[in-house]
């Protein structure tokens, strides 16, 4: 048998182009945005069984203290976040985690009310924050991100640079883009090109 695989041998998405540093225009007020990768993450698609959404909501409430978010919304409790991802469909997200840990944890609690699929390594989470984050995102998405319209915790399924993305305002003025892994480099290159006029900083991975 070959040696034990360690989690440290996992590849990091964007590894080839993600180099921490300061790029683009250099204004006196510092970079307009910061971009960073959240990795590793645990991501599970939760799809309610037919007619079982209420039971699923009860299971989540009882098991995790989490309300099932409505369309365009998200909820968080301690180490777990739920984000709406389409009709009767949600993404459960937790920091870090070894392969399929979260999937197993949720399956144990929700197997009767939902179908669960591990997507931890199929989605890449890019975080964009800073005073010009909205201006950069407005170059890609038709969603109105004005603070009065798109509040912290809100989510949107939209498109950016011909790529489907799942967008969340994860904290005030902090936006998280979930993108299919295969498209991540293209999207990241688009974001950096659009951010260059404001200056941007690529942060180290979290």
């Amino acid at each position, binding site marked *: 048998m070959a040696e034990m695989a360690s989690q440290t041998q996992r*590849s990091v998405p964007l590894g080839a182009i993600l180099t921490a540093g300061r790029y683009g*225009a250099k204004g006196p007020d510092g970079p307009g945005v910061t971009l960073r990768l959240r990795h590793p993450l645990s991501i599970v698609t939760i799809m309610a069984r037919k007619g079982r959404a209420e039971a699923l909501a009860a299971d989540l409430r009882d098991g995790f203290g989490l309300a099932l978010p409505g369309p365009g919304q998200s909820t968080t409790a301690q180490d777990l976040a739920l984000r709406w991802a389409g009709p009767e469909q949600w993404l459960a997200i937790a920091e870090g985690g070894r392969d399929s840990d979260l999937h197993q944890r949720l399956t144990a609690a929700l197997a009767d009310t939902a179908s669960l*699929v*591990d997507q931890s*390594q*199929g989605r890449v989470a890019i975080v964009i924050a800073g005073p010009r984050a909205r201006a950069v995102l407005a170059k890609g998405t038709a969603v109105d991100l004005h603070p009065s319209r798109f509040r912290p915790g809100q989510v949107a399924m939209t498109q950016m640079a011909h790529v489907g993305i799942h967008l969340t305002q994860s904290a005030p003025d902090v936006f998280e883009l979930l993108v299919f892994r295969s498209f991540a480099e*293209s999207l990241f290159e*688009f974001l950096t090109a659009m951010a260059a006029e404001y200056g941007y900083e690529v942060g180290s991975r979290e």
Partner: protein
Amino acid sequence: MTSRRLAQGGLIDRSRPIRFTFDHKSFAGLAGDTLASALLANGRMLMARSFKYHRPRGVVTAGASEPNALMEIGERGRRDANSRATMVELYDGLFAVSQNRWPSLAFDLGAVNGLAASIFVAGFYYKTFMWPKSFWEKVYEPLIRRAAGLGRASHEPDPDAYEKAYAHCDVLVIGSGPAGLMAALAAGRAGARVILADEGSRLGGSLLAEREEIAGDSGFAFVAATLAELEALPNVTLMPRTTVFGWFDGNVFGALERVNKHVAVPPAHEPVERYWRIIAKQAVMATGAEERPLVFGGNDKPGVMQASAIRAYVNRYAVTPGARAVVFTNNSSGYRTARDVLAAGIDVAAIIDARDGGTETHAAGVPLIADAVVTRVVGRERITGVNVLKGGATTADRIEADFVAMSGGWNPVIHLSCHKGDKPVWDAERACFLPPPSTPGLIPVGAAAGALTLSQCLKDGSAAGARAAGLAGFKATSIAVPETRDDEPYSIRPLWHVRQSTAKAFVDFQNDVTLEDIPLAAREGFNSIELVKRFTTSGMGTDQGKLSNINASGILAEATGRTVPEIGTTTFRPFYTPVSFGALTGAFRATHYQPVRKTPLHEWCEEMGAVFMEAGLWLRSAWFPKPGEDWRAAATREVMAVRQSVGICDVSTLGKIDLQGPDATALLNRLYCNGFSTLQPGKARYGLMLREDGFLFDDGTVSHLASGHYFITTTTANAGRVMSHIEFCHQALWPELDVQYVSVTDQWAQIAVAGPNARRVLERVIAEDLADAAFPYLGAQAVTVAGGIPARLFRISFSGELAYELSVPADHGNHVARLLMSEGSGFGIVPYGVEALSIMRIEKGHVAGGELNGTTTPEDLGLGRMVSRNKDFIGRMMGEREALKAGNRDVLVGVKPVEPDHQLRAGAHLLTRGAVASLDNDQGYVTSVAWSPMLRQWIGLALLKRGRERHGEIVQVYDDLRNSRMLVEVTHPCFYDRENLKLHG
């Protein structure tokens, strides 16, 4: 040349001179100038040659509608053709060249066309160059295009960046003149999110060009104070240099922001232009009005200008076009110009009013000649005077002047309000078209709505801003309107052309359409204004008839005994003014034209020296050449290694779908033509999906992972389409099914491990028992790789070898591939690419995209026995159609050149030996080809009429497109290991 700069006044910065070149001569202008005003200030009146007759032309307007002063701006890749000198802001180093003249602007040989003008009437080209027919494309059209042209496109790549962006607002105010400013202020004070966009380099619209007093101060001062308040409001965004060019469904407005067109080179990291989609709850259209030219002899000579444009040059740019003006008008506007020109210290020879006499304040000391017309402008490149004919008189008087202000009335700029197809409404009193009566989401206001006095514009603007904010959900009231003095009542008597003119009079300057052309079109039967436009070209070109269209309608009305409202207007369409292709393209060009998808094994493929190919959006490893190998040598080596020992291939691009739920098996049975009820957990099965019409849609594998939990693969090309198909079927056809499914294409790195030693290599990294008894052909199970990675193993084969597909979570892909390479080194393991994969499947006669081409049925491809007779499924009913069951269909065969070194090509047609090449004799075509390392010759798959009955026959391959003919033997489609001994090995 004489400097025409006035000693004082204007919104120019006299302390900041700016150097620029025009036709390679150096000039100086001032900050705040446009290219047109700077050329005028330098005494340069001649700016262009006309399109058809190459007549000398000067600037007519001071704004977006300019038909004449079109120039090439910038050099090499930055060159913009047909730039309007009136809209180009002056900057240091600006490089401008005139167009459509040879050898020079002052001496243009093309002007001989003007001498033959009587034959170059509208429709001349259509009629004259009819014969011989073959000459049109090769001789006439290139000649005409060279002679009659505008600017030249640059053939070099544009070095600048363009981008697109979205904006959202409660109230979009388009235009920043008096009405727009008041509307923005009213809506802004109410708390609405306001965007104020204006095409001008600075905000203020007509207030920058007039000398009107507001609240006891100048219009400039009012603009400055209002903008200061707007800027201070956090809910207001000001967008100068932004042309709103179109109104679209959903109250979306298209706009072009010229971010860095006023500098020679954009600052680093900044775009040159930005293409906006502005999504507005409500919009206020305060786009102003455009002054109509008058149509009289010589009205196109350099120095004949809109009366309002002359005010703009005098008041805003402190430039006079000449030393002595004459005014020709049929309305109030001419009087105001006379007053402003006089106030600037320039002579006004006379006001010639086509009406019996206006009620306007007369400019002191200027002779007023009422009930009179200008019949002719005298002078060549420089005007020396005009001929004036009084009512009843038979001979004209000469009045000396070196520039002419003309005003035929006002055309409200109603374009945006008509972009959704509504027709404008004629207003007889003001002799103009007004916006359509109902434009929900858009409120026309100010001069754009026919308000032609300053006080009315301010008042209506305030009300419109409040109304728009109210409709957008804000509590808003009109704001106080500042006082103005001396509103001049507007009065006009339409004058569509001067009857008494005998000299050439122009209706459309840019297209050289003369007064005669329009009645001619009517006589030829083109008597609708839309047909007149196409026949005469009036209203075409970069200005789209902003100056000419209404005069053309008036002239056509007179020529055909109808009224102007009966004639109507041509259709208003976006774009209001030209938009560059760069802006339309945005950031999506060159390598960013479309997104690139990379597999989780991309890094490993690069390490292995892969050559990548594009497959849809994906980059796939095509082959892995060793030094000195070309693609064929590399692919051949890879095939041999797999067939003899073992190789691994990145197949992560296959579409992957996770399907669960109590009714998952029922869904599969309906989606696929073959059955899945008997597929036990732990097993995989090949599946065929048909379209509703009975033809093949896609193929792939379905693996039963655990009870009610399936893992589906699709072809790379159809991954998205299959997912949409499943969603449609579930949502629209069978919503009663309790199934859940989601794409997991990106979650898994998928590695094919193929070859006689595949099991031995996998056994070194997987603990589970892989012996044939424990894990037979078409097994599917969860395994653990390298002692810790949760993975899935499928025993499926595309190559015909003992083969597996191993799925590992994407982050682990590179590591696992490297591990397989090192563990397989003792077996001579190789990486293989799509090319080798394809060769091996052709050797085995397995179908792929070339055969699943939308015209084939399962029966055609020898897969008929997979079609279930015991259940319903998509495509069953239509698949029973007679023609799909007919015996003479093209069916799958193998083809092998009789001469083994002959190269087959896909797409070549098949003919019965000796038959003439004709459509009737066509027997089918070659779908896939490869040079087979196992057979040491070219082989192919083909669709051949009654092919299954023809194995052994020699047929002709006919490919005259690529000049190739040969004889081939028809064979069974499987060329290699037909007994599938290796598969089960």
